[in-house]
């Protein structure tokens, strides 16, 4: 019965994860949370309370857009997709993240 224990997405990386997910294909909010879970092999759990505000924020920034669409099961859902600016943002953020993660790694590996 117990859900697989996942950690909450680290603050500040949620935007990056959303952008990455949407760079694969346009997706609705629930799909994004599922895809993040899948891609992280169940390790990362997106808190819905952060997801929707983050989507709004990104949309306001012009990095993603949204429109109403239909799912495979013929249900109405709001699909988010990446804009050109969002694509650039993703590149930058991903680079920043790799640099940061690498730096943290070096520190942790220090003896």
């Amino acid at each position, binding site marked *: 019965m117990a859900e697989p224990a996942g950690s909450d997405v680290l603050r500040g990386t949620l935007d990056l994860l959303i952008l990455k997910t949407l760079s694969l294909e346009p997706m*609705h*909010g*629930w799909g994004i*949370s*599922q895809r993040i879970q899948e891609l992280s092999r169940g390790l990362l759990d997106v808190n*819905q*309370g952060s997801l*929707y*505000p983050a989507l*709004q*924020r990104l949309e*306001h920034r012009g990095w993603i857009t949204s429109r109403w669409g239909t799912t495979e099961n013929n*249900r*109405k*859902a*709001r699909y988010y997709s990446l804009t050109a600016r969002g694509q650039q943002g993703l590149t930058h953020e991903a680079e920043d993240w790799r640099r940061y993660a690498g730096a943290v790694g070096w520190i942790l590996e220090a003896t």
Partner: protein
Amino acid sequence: MDEEFRFHIEMETEKNIRKGHDPVEARRRALVAFGGTERYREEARERRRLPLVEDVWRDIRHAGRALRRTPGVTLVAVPTLALAIGATTVLFSFADALLLRPLPVRDPGRLVGIYHVSSKDPRDPGSFSYPDFLDIRDAERSAGLRQVAVYAGMEVQLGDAPGVVQVEGAIVSGSYFSVLGVRPLLGRTFLPEEDRTPGAHPVVILSEALWASRFSADPSLVGGQITLDGRPFTVVGVVPRSTPSPDIHADPQLWVPVMMHEVVLPYLRAEGLDLLGSRSTQWFGVIGRLGPGMTFGRVRSALDVLSRREAEEYPQIDGAWSIAMAPLGGTRTGAPGTSNLPRLTALMAVVVGMVLLLACANVANLLLARAVVRRHEMAVRAALGAGRARLARQTLTEALLLAAVGGAGGILLAAWGTSVLPSLGLASGLPGLHVGLDGRVLGVALLTTFAVGLACGVVPSLRASTADAARGGTGSPPTWSGGRARFPLHRSLVAFQVAVSLVLLIGAGLALRTLWNLYAIPLGFDTTNLRVAEVHPTSFVDPGFPEFDSPSAPSAGEWSRVVESVRTLPGVRGAALASIAPFSSRSMANDFFREGEGGSRERFNVAMNVVSGGYFGTMGIGLVAGRTFTAADVPGGLLVAVVNEALASRIWPGGSAVGKRIWMRDFHSPDGPGIPIEVVGVVSNGRYYRTWRNAGERPFAFLPLSQHPERTMLLHVRGAASGIPTAAELRRAVTSADPTLTIVSMASVTRARAQAVTLQRTSAKLLTLFGMLAGLIAVIGIYGVVSFTVSRRSREIGVRMALGSRPRDVRQRVVAGSALPILVGAAVGWLVALALSMHLSSLLYGVSPRDPTTFAVVGAALVAVGLLASLVPARRASRVDPLTVLRAE
């Protein structure tokens, strides 16, 4: 958004079902995982960039609560602001109607007034005769005027008996409405043929106001008939309410063609007075419209040429004259004779501006006092993370809210104020001035309100923003000793208020003393219930055309029959004739000679009046020596005169004048010895002139009507207190005594006297009204601030009293605390008034602009009232029960 969430929850539910949960449990889990939807909604909303609007709304609600919590402040501040904003709005609507707003006509910039200006009285514009107008009309094209029109005011009886009313109207040329630039609301304006044949077209145009009030706005009235002076007239049109009168002193409600003048001005017909043919009947105002492409300057120089030609061709007995032109469209104050109005408006603007400043200071002060008390609240909010800007904005919002409520009240007050403006005398004599609230005025009122809100709020809000979490939070109550050092601001505002209201009140004091002095001048005669009616022969002869048959003036016997006939009317206590009325702008003077020792001749300029026998008795002029005129003073006999004491003492100092002889210069032989006249009586001095305040005790001689026949006389009628005969009754009495005579107009002497001092009366009213208002605001301010501080210091007062302070000491301390700013303010106000009052000197009479009495009395009174205002809360403070206060801690 809701739909998006629902989708999310449904998907999650399905996933849970796939995992094997039953649907209810699956949905519950989905909901739990999602959490409260309301929270996301809130967060999403925050992100939608509307926080400013919502913050402002929250500020307003908060401000509303804060103002309700301190009803004292609100109750003082709102009426103060309402009065000040209302006064400003009224002033603006007046100034707007008078100076700023163009007349509501087509192309007002091209409308001009054309005036007849006599070299004798260039400031008092005259009217034209109809032939003058025709000359101007003949030259209109060459002078560059598109068209000109005439108008003349009249009063007409509207309706059939018994429902007859007197209505102000005008006779106008056919071109009048097209020159004025007014289109009819219904029907048409006058046609060219209605301008040609006398008496042929009984048509009338009504104003919308008259049409609505008298005929219930019945559209079928156009084409129907109404009765004017007993004759049927066809209504051909209705013009809008906004139709302006070119003469600001008139407000006609109906117009008939000039050619119908014999019907609507019946006494002219009775007199055979030739309104349209005579050059000396100068009754008509002229307006014109500039021709296409013509400038004001070019038309004026063209008119100058015409004017010189006219003046040469038709010289006037009273000196040279010329044609002047003034733009009429923008304002009507370009017309000569209205020059006082901009000056009065400027005075009003200064006065009202001061009151507005005062009100702002007052409210700012109250808000400051409250801010002091709310230091604790502000400190707590600062400690809880409210930014300085946030706190400042909150306080500013409170001030703006107060201003908004006050402004709403002010606009209501202004709506009332503009309707009572005429009865306040501020717009008296200006019926043609339509003052009212419109979009422009409301816009200015709103701007004023906003500016006032800012002005009241800025200082307190800066104060609030410096609230210090650490210091304020300790909650140390304000004390007297601390108050003086820490809050000099609200004291200086009290001082400022006292100063401003003192300046206004000193102005009011000076103006009132002027008025008092003007009315206290002994006139030497009695003005109560005294009316003057102008009596004309019905066959009026044009002095400009002596070649026409000139009937002789009525004989002394005929004139005395007129007087006797009027005397028998009920309500008449005395009647007499004179050629010049009191306070009239006309005067008459001649040189007199006295035979000195050894044949030397001394010359005196003497003012004169030709009067009938009963004049002195009727006027209440006291006889000092000798006799007045009698039947013995016949035309063929020795000429006689009654002189005043000033003349008697000048010519025969120390001796009796009665029986002495003087010589009056003879117009026919100015260098001759003059006409001998014997002085038969001496009367007390009197001041009869319009400029009576400056005239002093002029030498004056009265000549008997019996020896100096005149064609036109002024009937002076002294009425009983119960009532005086109407003009119609007098006219009947005059005509029954002598059918060749009739009455043309009647006026009250008291009113003539008041009109002579309009400027002084109006400025006195204005300064008094606003001075009192300012004083009231200042007193309210002092009272408000003192009682507020006292109530917040009740704990300290309680402690002091517990420690042995007597109530009297408490009272003294409170009053002394407010005495300093009041005294400082009074001193500053004095100095400012000393500097400003010189500008009033042209308005003043018999009082120096720096009159020490006025300065001292007004200053002392204001200080006393201010102290009294602080004594009331002081008394309340001294009744504080120490036990109650301390227990409350």
